[in-house]
Each structure stands twice: as structure tokens, then as C-alpha cells.
């Protein structure tokens, strides 16, 4: 087999991403056609910046989706090592390709002779799965604590704000080093933190439903049951892990693999105080509005006012911040990988691959650059998306 030229590598990579291109075109065609009926999401397609950002984000989302669910796009097993492919340049053919093997390493091999292209593609799945979910959890924590702090004020506010400032004054990397080392993980501390942090989505959903349907007990009970029972089951299997400090629940459906839970918990922990401050600030602003006074005069309960009057009216800034924060979380995950914390060393996530590739950077560029550019494009996409959303939501 001949090595591929630069053009050959580019076209082969573009071809590998074919399912992603098709989905992107389909998504954009449908969205632009019906953009007037799609609310804020549709308005996004009025701004060029927003569209570029959305395309970048959806590119990685589709890549992650097709590579995990359908095993498409990537060409080799991200963990498989092929002999004589160590540090080979992009486009190098395999020495002895077996039947059905892809004949080239499209972006070359890393120092353990693994395919850089496949590792980059599979690594996207880790980021795309963890970052939005962790951000969502951080928002649940921040909203559940920030709303009462802003609404009631007083001593509750003082205590919660002090705690938030305490966490914010911590240098993030020091916190990661303190939380994610194997010794601390062995004490079960991150798991106890998970127990506390993961309760907040349950509380949030429970209070959200209860405050709305409090006056209709039959509807209330039904809805609470439908939402809370699956959530409690997931919560219990999430915090329980056989062979660790917390393993009491018999119905343990799944264990989170190697260190992911710890990474998840620390990222949520670092993000929630900032969300708390934003929500608290918005609440302080919105609670002086007339519709809140009207609800108070109607005799609505405080939690109804917070969750069904104040929160929906704070959604604009919160959605924008959500996009920005996913990008920031992606950066944090990369930082963790860069310092080799949490995830297993052979994991194909972008931070770890950049860290591995940087050590040989003065000689070989190809192992470090693809994950670096991938991470850059995803975060840039999220920032542009946030910018587009902000512009469009300010317009009316």
C-alpha cells in the first residue's frame, strides 16, 4: 500500500465523517425551513454566528453519537496497538492489514502505535456525554440553592453565599488534586459528595411538581411517582458501587467505570457555586417585579413563586450561561486529562491525549494537534452558540 498524500488524507477523513455531514445538512435544512415555528431555537438561524456555533457543536454531537451507537466514523480500535506504527506520520499504511481492516492510519500513530484519528473520534463521546450532564447537575444544584438564597435573603443567603465564595476562592487545580488522587478516592470522600450533590436533581424535580399540583392531590401523587421513582432508582445505582464504601442497595443497575464518577463529581462541585451566584443575582432582580407581587397577593407559596414565576423569567440568561458553561466544563475535563487525573491513562479523551502527545511535541506534531484542535472547535462552537443566543434573545 502507498502512503496517502495530504489531499488523500483530507478527503479520506471527510469521507469518514459522511454520516455526520448528512445529518448536519438534514438538521439545518429542516430547521431553516420551519424556523418561524421553533421559538428561540428557530431564531438562532437568523444569526450567522449562532449558526456557525451550532454547526460546530452538532458536528461533535453527531460524531459522538455515530461512533458510540453505530461504530461508524472511526477506523481502528482506539486502544489497539499495531506494531511498527509507532509515531508514524499521517497517511501511513498498515504494514500487514488483515481482512476488513482500514488500510491506513489517517492521522498517524501515537507513541504507543495507536490510531490518532480513531482516538480523537472516540474521545469526543466522553466529552459530549460528561460535559452537558455535569453542567446540568451543576445547574440543578445552583438553582435549588440560589432561588431561596435570593428570594428569602437574610441569614440563609449569608451562609450559602459564604460557602459559595469559599469554593470559588479555591484554585481549581488544587481542588482537583485534592479530590481526584487515588488516596482520597479510597476514603470514599468523592462518593459522599456524590450522595449530596446528586440529591439536588431529585429535590428540584420533586419540589417543581409538588409546588404546582399541591392543590390537586391525585394528579400530584401520580406525577410525583412517575418522575421520582425512576430518578430514585437511577440515583441509588449511581451512588452505589460494588466494592467501594457505599454498596448497600440491592438493585444496582450499573457501575460508573474507572474514575468517571469522581471526575463528574468534582466538575459539578466546581461549577455549582458560580451557577448559584448567577441564579441568586437574577432572583434578587426579578423578585421586585409586579408579577411576583401579584403572585404573593394571590397567596401563592414561596416555592411556587420561585420555580414557576421567577425561574421561567430568568431563562434567557440561564440558557446562554448554560452553553458557555458546557464549554467551560469541557475545558475543565481537558485540564483533568492534561494532569492525568481521574480517567484511566489509556482513555482516549482529549485532555489525556494532548498530555501524551505534548511530550514528543518538538519532533512529532500529529499525536497532540488533532485532539487540541477538536477541543478548541467544540468550545469555540459553544461560545459562538451562546453569543448567537444572547443576541437573538436580546432582540425582543
Amino acid at each position, binding site marked *: 500500500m502507498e502512503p496517502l498524500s495530504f489531499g488523500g488524507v483530507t478527503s479520506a477523513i471527510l469521507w469518514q465523517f459522511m454520516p455526520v455531514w448528512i445529518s448536519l445538512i438534514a438538521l439545518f435544512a429542516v430547521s431553516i425551513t420551519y424556523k418561524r415555528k421553533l421559538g428561540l431555537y428557530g431564531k438562532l438561524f437568523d444569526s450567522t*454566528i449562532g449558526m456557525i456555533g451550532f454547526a460546530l457543536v452538532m458536528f461533535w454531537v453527531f460524531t459522538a453519537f455515530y461512533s458510540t451507537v453505530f461504530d461508524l466514523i472511526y477506523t481502528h480500535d482506539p486502544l489497539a496497538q499495531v506494531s511498527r506504527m509507532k509515531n508514524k506520520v499521517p497517511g501511513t499504511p498498515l504494514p500487514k492489514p488483515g481482512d476488513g481492516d482500514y488500510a491506513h492510519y489517517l492521522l498517524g500513530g501515537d507513541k504507543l502505535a495507536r490510531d490518532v484519528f480513531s482516538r480523537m473520534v472516540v474521545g469526543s463521546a466522553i466529552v459530549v456525554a460528561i460535559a452537558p450532564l455535569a453542567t446540568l447537575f451543576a445547574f440543578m444544584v445552583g438553582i435549588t440553592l440560589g432561588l431561596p438564597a435570593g428570594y428569602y435573603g437574610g441569614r440563609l443567603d449569608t451562609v450559602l453565599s*459564604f460557602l459559595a*465564595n*469559599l469554593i470559588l*476562592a*479555591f*484554585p*481549581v*487545580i*488544587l481542588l482537583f*488534586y*485534592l*479530590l481526584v*488522587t487515588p*488516596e*482520597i478516592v*479510597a*476514603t470514599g*470522600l468523592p462518593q459522599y459528595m456524590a450522595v449530596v450533590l446528586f440529591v439536588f436533581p431529585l429535590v428540584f424535580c420533586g419540589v417543581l411538581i409538588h409546588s404546582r399540583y399541591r392543590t390537586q392531590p391525585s394528579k400530584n401523587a401520580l406525577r410525583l411517582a412517575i418522575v421520582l421513582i425512576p430518578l430514585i432508582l437511577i440515583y441509588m445505582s449511581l451512588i452505589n458501587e460494588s466494592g467501594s464504601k457505599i454498596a448497600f442497595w440491592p438493585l444496582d443497575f450499573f457501575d460508573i467505570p474507572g474514575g468517571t464518577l469522581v471526575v463528574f463529581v468534582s466538575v459539578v462541585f466546581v461549577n455549582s457555586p458560580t451557577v448559584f451566584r448567577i441564579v441568586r443575582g437574577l432572583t434578587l432582580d426579578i423578585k421586585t417585579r409586579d408579577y411576583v407581587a401579584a403572585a404573593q397577593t394571590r397567596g401563592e407559596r414561596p416555592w411556587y413563586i420561585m420555580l414557576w414565576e421567577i425561574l421561567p423569567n430568568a431563562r434567557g440568561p440561564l440558557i446562554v450561561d448554560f452553553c458557555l458553561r458546557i*464549554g467551560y466544563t469541557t*475545558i475543565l475535563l*481537558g*485540564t483533568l486529562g*492534561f*494532569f492525568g487525573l481521574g480517567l484511566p491513562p489509556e482513555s482516549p479523551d482529549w*485532555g489525556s491525549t*494532548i*498530555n501524551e*502527545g*505534548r511530550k514528543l*511535541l*518538538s*519532533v*512529532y*506534531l500529529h499525536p*497532540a*494537534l488533532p485532539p*487540541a*484542535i477538536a*477541543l*478548541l472547535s467544540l*468550545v*469555540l462552537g*459553544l*461560545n*459562538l452558540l451562546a*453569543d448567537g443566543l444572547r443576541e437573538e434573545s436580546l432582540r425582543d
Partner: protein
Amino acid sequence: MGLFILRRVGVMLLTALCLTYVVFFMTNLYPNLEKLAKTQGNFRMSDEAVASWLDDRGYLQSTPKKYAEWIGVIPSKRTVLEDGTEIGRCIPPGVEAADAPSFCGILQGYWGWSTVFKKPVGEIVGTRLSLTGFLMLCVMLLMVPSALLIGVLAGMREGSTLDRSLSTVSITTTATPEYVSGVIFIAVFASSAVGLKWFKGSATKAMEDPTFENFFLPVLTISLYGMGYIARMTRASMAEVMTAQYIRTARLKGVSFGNIVMKHALRNALIAPFTVIMLQIPWLLNGVVIVETLFNYKGFGWTLVQAASNNDIELLLGVSVVSVVVVLVTQLISDIGYVYLNPRISVT
């Protein structure tokens, strides 16, 4: 104003105490101590030997007591070993027990003994901090003027082509974390694969002899990430000021555009960015850790990584005290400066 500062300093001290206690608690968890005993004593120690080693050195006392010893408000524990030598926290290697003080903590200026570098922690933190201080100074000198310039240029005519392009640049820099931009810079400007070789990919030499060639890339890498954010804040603040009534009045009176920007708008537009710049310092600390690791510049951030990954408990504590204090002091300065710069805000 005096009362305001006093109250803020009080809250700051309380925060510092809480934070150092948390760090103290987490670094003194039993698995960490066990690892310490095994690396300092003997790798094949039995569990009882580990426990007695730790007990002799006062590590198995309750955490509040150890914390108070570390702060220096109660005398630290001493044990006489079987062979007659007296050991304790206050007796560093090579000092007679009788000469050692009974109180030794942060308050007495004793920061402990680093097990990795085999030196007093105070000395290490001092030298490393001065190296990083120089790095930070260069970063500030590059980052702040260019960020303000970009922000003011973008904000003075909102929506113009100049604004659009500068805004895109600043969004891109905020989306590029240090470990990405650093890797790209090294790849493009320092590697033999591309062949430009304008700069050095390692800043180790810059510790004794900083030159443009070996020091510019780390400084640029840290500056870029912070620059975008400050520039965007400046742009927003500038754009807001430019729509104000008094600017319109000045324009109607026939003041030239340059004079409006320089004499009328700039001062008011720079109030908000000042806070942002001060609050950016904790984030710079983060960038410093990444960049010093990436460029092998053995400063404060590099020390943090070494201390944390080698379980050097007292050095890690010293490093965290310093970084927490830096963060809190910048917050204080930003609050005071904001009140000072903005007469509309009263402290009472």
C-alpha cells in the same frame, strides 16, 4: 470606608481559615499519611509499624489539634524514641531537640519541611513565588493593555466590521484553554517538524536568564486565554458608555470622535474592566499551573503539581495557603477599587 475594609478583612481571614482547614483535613486523611510513612520510613512497613511511625510524629492526633499546631497556637507534640532521640514537627533534621522551639507554625514563620525537595517549605515557596511573580508581571504587561485596546476599539463603534472581527478574535481566545494554545504554539513556532524555530519550546532556561526567545511563548499562552474575557467586558462597557446622553451632547457640541473616546468615554468605560482584571488573577493562577507544567518553568504552579503528585503534605499546605491568600487579597482589592472608582456605589 474604614469599617467596610475592616469587615471585608475579617470575612477574608475567616475564609482563609476555613479553606486552609479543608486543605489540611484532606491532605491529612489516613491514606495520605500511610503513603507518607511508607515513602519516608520503609516501603515494607507493616500496618502497626506505620501507625507507630505516624503516632511518634504526632500525625495521629485529632485534626483540629494538628491544625492548631500547624497554625502555631498550641505547642507541637514531641516523642522520645527508644534510642533516646527526641522527634517532633518542630525539630527539623540536623537541629538539636533542646534548641528547637516548642511552638512552630505559620504564625511563627515555620512552614514545615518538604519531603520532596528536602528543604524548608518557606524557602521553596519564596523562590518559586518570585519566579512566578515575574511570569505574572510579564503576563499582566502584555494582557491588560492589549485587552483594553481590543475592547475599546471594538466598543467605540458597536456593530462595525472592526467590532465584529475583534469580537470574533476575543471569543476565539476565550475558547482556547492554555493547554491547547500552548501545544499549538509549540508545534508551530518551536518544533523541528514545522521548522520555524522562532522560540524555544521550554522555558527552563528562562528561570535564570529570561530572554524574548525562551520566555515569550509561555507569557503569550497565559495572556491569550484571559485576554478575550477582559476585552469582551471592556467592549460591553465601552459600548454602553458610547450610547450615554453626555456623549451625545459632546458630539452635538462638535467634539471630535477621537476626543470623545479619549477624554469623555474612556474613564467611565474602564470601571467595569478593572474589577474583571482583578478577578482574573485567580484564573491566571490556574493558567500558570498548566503553562509551567507545559513549558517546564519551575515556578509556583510547577511546585504545586510536584507537591500534589508526590504527596508532599507540608509543601502542598504551604502552596495552598499562598494561593488562597492571593485569591482573597485580589478579591478585596477589586471590591475596594470598585467602590473607589465608582462614586455611585456607597459602602454603607
